[in-house]
């Protein structure tokens, strides 16, 4: 599993907010970079990465809400914390229902922000690893021939080689060859591994 640097991205048009938040987060060893607009952040955006976005809703140009919607659409594994001003509760509620991780009112309460950033980072990490795993398993399945996929389905269903051979109308020896290839291509040490991988794909499909 490749490791991505975990990062907090602060996007705010206010200089002092960016620099004070960076100061705050770095005090607790959370690496942070900042951008003065959504447009400035987009080139640096890697949808599949571990990280947290701290986003001001009121910005010139692309608003925080627009960026949020875009990232959710892309299925980004980054988590988003919205910063709102006084009296923007309806907007915050909308942000949450649109897929934001959390919203924090200004003036910012430092400990609360750090706590939420950590939670968000954890969620991002999980989402990221799930996504990596899924991509990995999908890549392995794609290496299987159609016949091997059939055999794998039957193995996962818990059938013995003899039953599988009868089911597919081949001799048992052929099934044994297929089984070996499946285990090899799927890099599965045991049938249990195979079942887990099957589960991962199914979950994604569901």
């Amino acid at each position, binding site marked *: 599993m490749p490791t991505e640097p975990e990062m907090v991205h602060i996007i705010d048009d*206010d200089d002092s*907010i960016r620099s*004070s938040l960076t100061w*705050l987060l770095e*005090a607790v060893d959370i690496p942070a970079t900042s951008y003065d607009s959504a447009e400035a952040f987009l080139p640096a955006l890697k949808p599949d990465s571990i990280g947290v976005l701290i986003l001001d809703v009121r910005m010139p140009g692309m608003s925080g809400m627009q960026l949020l919607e875009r990232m959710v659409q892309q299925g980004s594994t980054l988590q988003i914390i919205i910063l709102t001003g*006084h009296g923007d509760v309806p907007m915050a509620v909308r942000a949450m229902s649109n897929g934001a991780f959390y919203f924090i009112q*200004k003036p*910012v309460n*430092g400990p609360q922000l750090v706590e939420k950033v950590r939670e968000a980072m954890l969620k991002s990490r999980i989402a990221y690893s799930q996504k990596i795993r899924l991509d990995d398993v999908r890549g392995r399945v794609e290496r299987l021939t159609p016949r091997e996929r059939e055999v794998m389905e039957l193995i996962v269903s818990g059938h013995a080689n003899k039953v599988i051979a009868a089911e597919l109308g081949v001799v048992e020896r052929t099934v044994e060859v297929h089984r070996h290839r499946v285990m090899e291509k799927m890099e599965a040490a045991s049938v249990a591994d195979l079942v887990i991988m099957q589960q991962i794909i199914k979950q994604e499909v569901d």
Partner: protein
Amino acid sequence: MKPSQPSDLFRTLLLCLAMLWPGTGGAVHETRELAGQHLNIGVLAFRGEQRTEKIWGPTVEYLSLAVPGVSFDLKPLDLEQMEQAVQAGQVSFIITNPGNYVELEYRYGVSRIATLQRYHHQSPSRRIHSAIIARADRTDLQNIDDLKNRSVMAVSENAFGGFQVAWGEMKQHAIDPNSDLAELVFAGFPQDNIVKSVLDGSVDAGIIRGCLLEQMDRAGLIDMADLKVLGGRPNDTGECRVSTAAYPDWPLAKLGGTSDHLAKLVTMTLLAMPDNHRAALAGEYSGWTIPVEYQAVHDLFRELQIGPYEWMRRPTLLILWSRYWQWILVALLGVLWWIWHVYRVEQLVRTRTSQLTRANLRLQEEMEERQQTEQKLLTQQNELAHVARVSTAGELASGLAHELNQPLSAISSYAQGCIWRLESGRITQDELRDVIQRMAAEAERAGAIIQRLRGFLRKEQTHCKAVDINQAVGEATDLFAAEANRRGIRVTLTLAKAIPPVCSETIQLQQVIINLLRNAADALNGLAAERLRIELSTHYAVAEGVVRIDVRDFGPGIDPQGKSHLFEPFFTTTADGMGLGLSLSQSIVESHGGTIRVIDNAHPGACFSIVLPVYKEP
């Protein structure tokens, strides 16, 4: 008989005239159209068909020969047949006595085209008379008046010269032949019999046509000396003695359907009949002349109520009804229609009037509605302006909060970061100094924001000028008048005299006054009419060096619990209020160096006072 020269001349002249008649040119053509026609001439036959044929046959023959292409046939007809033939159009021309002619003229529109000229020397319009005769030795019978209670003989009820003319004369003498005579006998033709009956004494008197006696005398049938004519007078020519006025001779008449052209031809032919023509001789006449006036016959018949005037005998209404029932019916229908029409017109007028009234009402309603709409619009505009002011304040507050949030947020984050770094001992003095400097800068930024806001609120003070509050109050009241009017509120104004000017910006001061007026008006909602009152007054407190504007209402007063919150933003006692009015008003007044006070001992109601310092020359 000697032919008379003037009469011949006249006849020739007439013929010439007829030739010159316009349309004579077309006569040839029209004559051709008549070719081969057989037409009937009806002749009144008193004395049998044979005699009639003998008298009138040659005249009809003469016409047949003289009118090219037409042959005429003689139709002898008695009175009854005559009427039937005329009614049915079986004859084209008729020759009849004056009485019958007048009746047919009246009933069927026949018109005379020529009158018979019996003798050259006698006017045909004064030709027919009656003679009432008695024996010469009857001394008791001298005048017509003497006929009363005598027996009288006549030829026929319908005979013109033989009875009707005499009847007319008797009527003038107040004798009704039907009731005043002892006996009235109709003996029929010939009239000679009547003369005989008188002579032999079987009747007292007899009615015969004029000149018959003289004729009979000349013929040697009687001796004139044996008889006398009652009321006798000579006729026009002096040849005969007669008892009555003279009436015109027989006419020849055409029926309505007979063509004028043919009638003209017949007339011309008759007028052109030569003297001593066979026809004239047979008919015992000298010729024909232009038709004469028959009015005398009409007058006689009207007098006798016979012929066309028979209806006059019957009771008037019945007669009218029987003769004119169609017209009466039409008239009645007309009257009914008129009544209906009048009724209808009335109805229409009533309907139209009520429609107009309704339309008027609707118009009034619409006008009221429009006025209300306008009023509402005005109020809405006022309210809109109010809301605009309030929302400006709201936006100001919101913007202010956001702006202040930024530096506060930054300061908070810097501080928290410092704390954590200090705790973990990972901060250098330089870093700390740097961050604290940034925090100070943020604090200054916050301060600048607040400074800017205060400047904004105080901005008007720089435009402060001397303002006459009486004038400001007056203008504010004027502005509020429409709303007060709408809500039925009376605003009374009491202005202090010799009041010094205050330091103000007029518009803002007006806004505050209107605000207080509106609050006062709101407090009066739902109260009785006599309490819908606002008193506005200005005062000058010399000792304090301030002027005061009092706005006093007669509403329920201020809730003691609410009193302390009155000037807080968003505090409101009305359902649709924003709660910013008083707080904003106070801000404005305070920016003028003044204040708003509440006087709660103004029972009933509440009194708000705007207190402003007197303007001092800078």
